[in-house]
């Protein structure tokens, strides 16, 4: 038996080892960095629509500033918004709760993981202010541009960027260790592997894929750092180096990385579909099998990012084949998701809206990837806005539709209050509309031949037909960014003023809904829950209720009497 001990302010909020507090820290970090990343998105769209005119709150976006801004937009959105929001925050909050544990296997390592990420974010932000300015080599940092400051004049900024990325990669790997060990060793009694919710499986799949893929890019980062600082020539042809090696190392990681960002959202959507359609997930084993195949394939598709680099042409066909092949397991998962919804008793609460929106928008992203994976079509489409639209139609749904789905769904458990439903619904509708208005036109201008990573389209007379589409996309982008303030208001306002939530407002089966809202330190009462069924017993024939919690015997006593 145990007494919850009193925690001081610093132990409870700042230097916390409690997985729920660490999760909230990651969430706050993600939201803060999203504001910066979103501001950069605004600047990018402004320059494209109104070249060389001073942008509000910034001034003129000159070409070298533009290069820095697109680099930072990509880096921030992927590594300081995407990974904290989709991997760190949900894994930290949900994994112990969903398996019936009291905390992570290594709580102090967890805290260290957050502080490393915060340090990395600080280093990146500090690079805005150093002499020479921030990194400007694209988020992909292709050599030789990134390997020597003689081309861009950026030295300190590049070094800080490399170190910042190395830190965030190491922090994420450490987090992954935690999640994996926790699930293997700390499942509650009766929580067999087959009863673990699919969200946990997808979070684990993401963690596993990440730490298996990150090694080569860390190796490459050390080499790039040495090129910049010690004048070595790993990636500089003039010194006997090989620029394409950087690309191979980078994309060997980069491709599995996009699945690291995609898997958690798949997990959230599947669990949300089960709850809001009152149905078990269709084809659970098929989904898990397809995921395993997809992970395996994801390690042999990377060179589809390099079709036009001048690499050995013999490599093009094999990689094109594997790239087309990898769409198969994902298509299977998609069909299973549709069949999960089919004939369900659908209730359109905000989490369900986000999950449905994800299905619709990611479908576009996934299908357009096939065009790019076909190497012949890629000859024309590479480096155009078609690519930009494709990856925004995959990344934005994964990161934001998935992230908002998770936040909307688990908000009552995190804070004990409900989000304002009207505001959340309006936020979804407007985001969905404006998102499509920003990025659909980019497919069109991309097919028209407009290339990416150029600051001033008006410089090229062949792009003059696209002026109106670019302006339309920019105005939609400004509306999209403005819409997010609805969410920010809702998130912070409802923390204290939202409707008080019941323990299990959506009548879901998974274990986390049995704990208090928010769960206390140590999560459960004196006795852990004992699990007697799987997580998808919804609408079982012959039962009075349409749901069946995984641990019916758990009484939910407060941890101290």
């Amino acid at each position, binding site marked *: 038996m145990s007494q919850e001990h009193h925690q001081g302010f610093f132990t409870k909020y700042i230097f916390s080892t409690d997985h729920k507090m660490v999760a909230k820290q990651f969430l706050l970090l993600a939201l803060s960095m999203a504001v910066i990343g979103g501001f950069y998105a605004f600047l990018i769209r402004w320059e494209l629509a109104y070249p060389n005119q001073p942008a509000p709150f910034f001034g003129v976006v000159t070409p070298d500033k533009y290069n820095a801004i697109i680099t930072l937009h990509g880096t921030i959105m992927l590594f300081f918004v995407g990974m904290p929001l989709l991997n760190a925050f949900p894994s930290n909050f949900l994994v112990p709760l969903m398996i019936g544990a009291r905390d992570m296997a290594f709580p102090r390592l967890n805290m260290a993981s957050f502080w490393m990420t915060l340090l990395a974010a600080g280093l990146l932000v500090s690079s805005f202010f150093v002499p020479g300015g921030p990194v400007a080599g694209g988020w992909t940092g292709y050599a030789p541009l990134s390997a020597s400051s003689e081309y861009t004049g950026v030295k300190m900024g590049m070094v800080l960027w490399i170190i910042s990325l190395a830190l965030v990669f190491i922090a994420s790997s450490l987090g992954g260790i935690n999640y994996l060990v926790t699930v293997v060793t700390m499942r509650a009694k009766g929580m067999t592997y087959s009863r673990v919710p699919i969200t946990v499986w997808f979070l684990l799949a993401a963690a596993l894929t990440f730490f*298996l893929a990150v*090694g080569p890019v860390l190796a490459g980062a050390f080499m790039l750092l040495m090129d910049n600082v010690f004048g070595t020539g790993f990636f500089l042809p*003039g010194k*006997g180096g*090989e620029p*394409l090696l950087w690309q*191979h190392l980078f994309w060997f990681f980069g491709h599995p990385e996009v699945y690291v960002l995609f898997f958690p959202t798949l997990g959230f959507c599947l669990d949300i579909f089960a709850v809001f359609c009152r149905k078990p997930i269709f084809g659970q084993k098929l989904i898990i099998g397809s995921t395993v195949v997809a992970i395996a394939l994801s390690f*042999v598709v990377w060179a589809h990012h390099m079709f036009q680099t001048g690499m*050995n042409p013999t490599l093009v066909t094999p990689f094109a084949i594997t790239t087309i092949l990898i769409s198969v397991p994902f298509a299977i998962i998609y069909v299973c998701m549709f069949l999960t919804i089919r004939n369900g008793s659908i209730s359109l609460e905000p989490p369900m809206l986000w999950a449905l929106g994800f299905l619709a928008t990611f479908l576009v992203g996934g299908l357009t990837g096939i065009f790019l994976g076909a190497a012949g079509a890629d000859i024309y489409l590479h480096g155009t806005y078609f690519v930009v639209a494709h990856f925004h139609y995959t990344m934005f749904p994964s990161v934001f539709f998935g992230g908002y789905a998770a936040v909307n769904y688990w908000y009552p458990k995190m804070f004990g209050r409900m989000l304002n439903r009207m505001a959340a619904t309006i936020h979804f509708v407007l985001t969905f509309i404006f998102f499509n208005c920003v990025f659909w036109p980019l497919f069109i201008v991309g097919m028209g031949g407009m290339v990416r990573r150029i600051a001033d389209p008006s410089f090229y007379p062949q792009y003059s037909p696209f002026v109106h589409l670019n302006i339309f996309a920019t105005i939609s982008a400004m509306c999209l960014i403005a819409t997010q303030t609805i969410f920010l208001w809702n998130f912070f306002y409802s923390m204290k003023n939202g409707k008080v939530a019941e323990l299990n407002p959506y009548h879901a089966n998974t274990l986390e809904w049995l704990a208090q809202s928010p769960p206390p330190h140590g999560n459960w009462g004196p006795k852990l829950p004992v699990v007697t069924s799987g997580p998808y017993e919804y609408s079982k024939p012959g039962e009075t209720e349409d749901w069946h919690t995984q641990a019916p015997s758990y009484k939910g006593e407060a941890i101290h009497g």
Partner: protein
Amino acid sequence: MNITTSKSNHELVYIALVILALVTVGASFLHLAGNENVYLIFGLATIQCLLVAFQYMGLKLEGVMVYGLVIVPLILFAILVFLCIPDISHYPLNLKL
């Protein structure tokens, strides 16, 4: 039974490792034809590695999960190197600037 309770044969393994290390160095002084030298040296290194892994690191006592954690990165290493050889190692790019 786990790694710390199994009967230890650390001394035997140590002697074997030292001998193998010295033999490997010696093998590099042989001038065998073509690539045989490389195979011999790395074959010996692999045996040393397996000795350390199975005996010192206790791999022989671990379950499927740990074997998987060791084997999968090695497979990924092979994939990375073999798929990049046509590009990095054999592509006729003779840029001696």
